[in-house]
Each structure stands twice: as C-alpha cells, then as structure tokens.
C-alpha cells in the first residue's frame, strides 16, 4: 500500500481497539466543580484600591479585600 495509508484491516483493528478501550476504560461519570481561583488582582481594582486607601474610603478597601481574598 502507499506510504501513510492504512490497510483496511489495520484500520478496522485500530478502530475496534479504540472502541474497546473507550468502553472498558471510561472514567466514572461523577462531575465535581473546580472553580478558578483568583491569583491576580484586576489592574483596575489595584489602582482603585490604592486611590481608595489614599483618600481613606474604608468601604471600598473592604470590598477590594473581599474580592481579592478567599
């Protein structure tokens, strides 16, 4: 056969192996949420927080801490 072209029997064998693996090896279906964690402050929030602290606006400071913390 030409280079890179599978023989039909090879194709069938590969397909059946893959199908068997998919059937036998399938992971349990038990989803669990994994929310993305915050590791960086948004640039706007950083600047906003700095300005807020500068002019002593505590309620904005608390809000920034809540968004940046766990």
């Amino acid at each position, binding site marked *: 056969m030409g280079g890179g072209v599978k023989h039909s029997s090879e194709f069938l064998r590969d397909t059946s192996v893959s199908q068997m693996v998919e059937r036998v090896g399938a*992971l*349990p*279906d038990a989803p*669990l949420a*994994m*929310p993305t*964690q915050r*590791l*960086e402050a948004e640039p706007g929030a950083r600047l906003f927080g700095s300005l807020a602290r500068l002019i002593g606006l505590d309620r904005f400071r608390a809000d920034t801490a809540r968004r940046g913390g766990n």
Partner: protein
Amino acid sequence: MPGPGLARAAAAGPSTLRARLLVLAVSLAAAATGFMLFLQFGSSDGLDGWDILRSLLILLSTFWLAWGAAQGLIGLTTRAEAPALADRPITGKTAILVPVYNEDPVTTFARVAAMDASIAATGTQASFHFAILSDTRNEAVAAREEEWFLRLIADRQAEGRIFYRRRKVNTGKKAGNIEDFITRSGAAYDFALILDADSLMEGATIVEMVRRMEAAPDLGLLQSLPKVINASSRFGRAMQFSASFFSPVFARGLAMMQGRTGPFWGHNAMVRVRAFAESCGLPALRGTPPFGGHILSHDYVEAALLARAGWTVRLDDDLEGSFEEGPENIVDHAKRDRRWCQGNLQHARLVGAPGLKFWSRWVFVQGILAYIAPLFWLAFIIASVFAQIYAPAPDYFPDDNWPFPVFPADETTKAIGLAVGIFGLLLLPKLLIAIDAWASGRAQGFGGGGRATLSTLTELLISSILAPILLAYQSRSVFQVLFGIDGGWPTNNRGDGTLTLAEAWAASGWISVIGLVGLVCVYWLAPGLVLWLLPVVLPMILAPVMVSWSSRDSRSGLMTVPSELAPSPVIGLHVEVLRAWLGDAARAAEPAVAPAGA
C-alpha cells in the same frame, strides 16, 4: 473549606516558629560574617565600589548557602516519626492518578500493574481505582497505550477498576490533565493519589497515606518523600544516593520549618479531592509565556492555595515505599530543570497574590532564589575581575609627615577563611549526615558505615566537579526565561541515557567555550584570580568529557542504596511484569519460522 477551628490548625505552631527563627538566625549570622570578612579583605587596598558590591553579593550568596545548610543541620536534631493512629480499616475511596505524556506505555503500565498487585496484597483493593490520564500527542505512542491498556486490564482482571482517558487537547498541561479528571469524576472519590509516569509506590504505603488522611480531617494534602531507584549511570547513581542518603535529613529540616504549610512536589502525594477541587482551580496568568499563560510549576501554587483555604499541607518524611526514577545524564537533568526554572521564575507573578500565607510566599521566593543564586556568584566573579583591573596602586607613603614606607596589611587569610567557611557550608551538613548515619546504624542500608562514608565522599567529589556545569545550564535557563524564550515541556527521556562524546559536545560545548574564554580573559586582565577560579573553569572547559563520562554506567559498587540491597517488594513486582510483557512482545514480534521441508 474547613471550619474556623480547622482553619486555626493551618497557623504555624511554636515548634515550627522556633525552627524557622533558628535557621534564619544561623543564616543571617553566616551572611553577616561573610559580609564583614570580605569587606575587611576588600578594604585592605582601600574601600571602593567594587568591594562594596562584592561584599553585598557575598552577603546574599552566603545567606542562601547557610539557609540550605541550616535546614540540613536542624534535620539532624530529630527523627521522623509516624503519627500514632488507631488501627482501623480505611473507609475512603481513592483514585490513583497516573498522568502520561508520550511515555513508554509498557514500562508505565507495568508500574500500574505492580502497584495494583501490591495493593491487592493488603486486602484493600476495593478501595482503590487507577486512572491513566493520557495527554500523549504522538499517535503511534497513543496507539500502543491503547493496546497495552487492554493487556493491563486482562492481566489484572481490572475492568471497572483501572481506567484510561486520552485528552484531545492538553489544555493546561499536567495541571489541566488533573483538573479534567476531577471535573469529570472527582465526586466519586474521597482522595486522589497523584503520581508521575515514573512513580512507583508500595500498596502498604498508599493505604497508610489514606489512613493518615482519614485521621486528620484538616489535612488537604499529604506529601511523601520519593526515593530515586533504577539508576545505573554515574550521574544517575549520584543523584539516587543523594536522594536516599541526604534528602531524608534535609526533608526532616524542611518539614520542621514548613509545619502545616508544607510542600507539594507534584507527585507521590495524596490530596483530599473536595479540598483540592474547591481550592486549586488554576487560572491562566495574564500575558504570554514565559511569565504569563498557564502556570507551569502548578504544584507549589496548589500547595499555597490549599494553605490559603485553611487546609494543612504536610510532608511525612517517615513514609517509606515511595519511589521515582531520575534522569541518567546531565543533559536530561538540564532539560527537566529548564522547565522547573521557568515555572519557578513565573512564581514572581504570584508572590503578592491575595490571601496567601507568609510561608507560601517565602516558598515562592526560595524557588526563585534557587535559580537566581548562581547569578550572584557569576556577578561576584565578574566584579572581582573589574576590582583587580581598577585596583589602585599601593600608596606606601600615605602620610606626608612620615618618611618611612607603610605596607598594606595582608588580608589574604580573611579571604581564605571566607572560602573555607563557604566550602564548610556546602560540605559540613553532608559529612555530619554521614557521621550520624554511621552512629545511628542507618548506614547499614547503604552497605555499612565504611561504604556509606566512601559513597558520601564520592558523591561530594562528583557533585563538586559537576556543579559549575549544572550552574552554567541553570544560568542559561534564567537568561532564556528573562528574555522571553519559552522552553515549554520537553518530553522526559527515561531509559538508557548514555551520551557519546559527540553528543555531549553538541549539548555542552558552549560551556567549554565560555570556560576557556573566561580563563583567558581572567589570565589577561586579573592574573591574580586564576588560581581562585580554576575549580570553576576547569570543569567548565572539560564539560563534554564530564557529561559523557557521568552518563556511563557505574561499575564501582559505590553509592549503594537500600532499594538495591533490600528492594521493596513493589520494585520486584514491576520487574516481573515488565519481563513477562517484554518477553511476550518479543515473541510476538519474531517472524514466523516455516517448518522444515515446506
């Protein structure tokens, strides 16, 4: 998230604080001493900017060396102890995760078979599933993975216990691979044992880890200390010996300092699935690699996130029966190290992340320093050359009213004393560990006190000679990262790692050239420094020879480790499975022999 009571458990206890303060005190004292000694040495011909710069570099470098040395020394002050647990059967369900990426499936799946058999021997097989999580991109390897998975299932009668999933797109690399499993199947399990493709663990050890997780509801992650096995080359065996002989003591010191904000090294560790799922979803960082994009060294970040959420992350260095394989030559080590370098430097983006524990932030800084520290030494050498070039001529008549010459004080003894001190920081912990091993009987596992001591001296010699070569690779990695050259994830090359001289030259000839050029420049510009620099430039010039030599099999019989003298049963199981499978594969590959007369 653990409740408020458990959240308090994540704070550092008094013994942890004492260990940290002691190591900090020793490191600061050593750094200050080095700084003052060098300042006095440098000011013998008049204090200038080069002397101050070099003194500061000595301060930083000595602090870093002393930090590592002190960690080893405090590790000698206690022994690892297993926690006292009630002897009751485990109840939790555990998934053993085996992420693979273009690995040899025969060797990897044989490990799964061996671990499955080892767990079966404990009578707890029903509590464990294996999940082989493939991110393999090579279609030929993927096809072999499928064939050998079916062989694994048949041999272990493991349908419904061992699973296989290959991702179409390997988003987020290994961290994304694990996350994909958790989001698909995590709710079915209480715990997950995260392995690497070359990890091997005793069934009894895995069961013990589950027992410890069940006994401590605040425990989010339990890290074991894997020992390197199956090394055959001189380089590989030196790393293997170091991992078995020295690392447990350094890990003991580390555990004392880290307390409940312990490490995660990405494998041979067990996590509480819900804690991990709630806390460890990693974002892609803004910007492009190497500092942006997916987080490469995700394990350190996941440990920090678990601690942030109030979970305990603990290193139990008493656990035996945890193994991995290492690179057999310097080049493979350097390739792996390149990835770690990029991952660690990327953590600079996260040192200021909101809500992290102080120790987690310090761990990021330590990881960065581990790769930046060689640059302090490089800067010191360059500054020393310039200091010699710009050194003022001695002034023998500094006082116009004094007619007799005044000769500058010779402070060479201070420089020698400083050099001895620095070498002491490098060598003393290892020598003390050898003495302790002899006195405590631990050396029996390494062939006895005499052999263990010889092995220690051999390892010290090999690591001292190879250090400048490894530091050259590390420095190059740092420059590549800082200049934005993304190293990505090269496939680990596990297996025979012998390098010919030509291959070694291709990989390390640049180090030879830099060493030779450096030596010529120093001889020309600052000949007084040549002798001081020889221990660094000679190994560099000989880099291809050393790289090739160290990649060859060791026949000395030294650097024996317990896994060779009294192998753990799971290692034997792995060998048995591998022999059976490879034998069958060889027979299957043999051409059919036509009967005589046909």
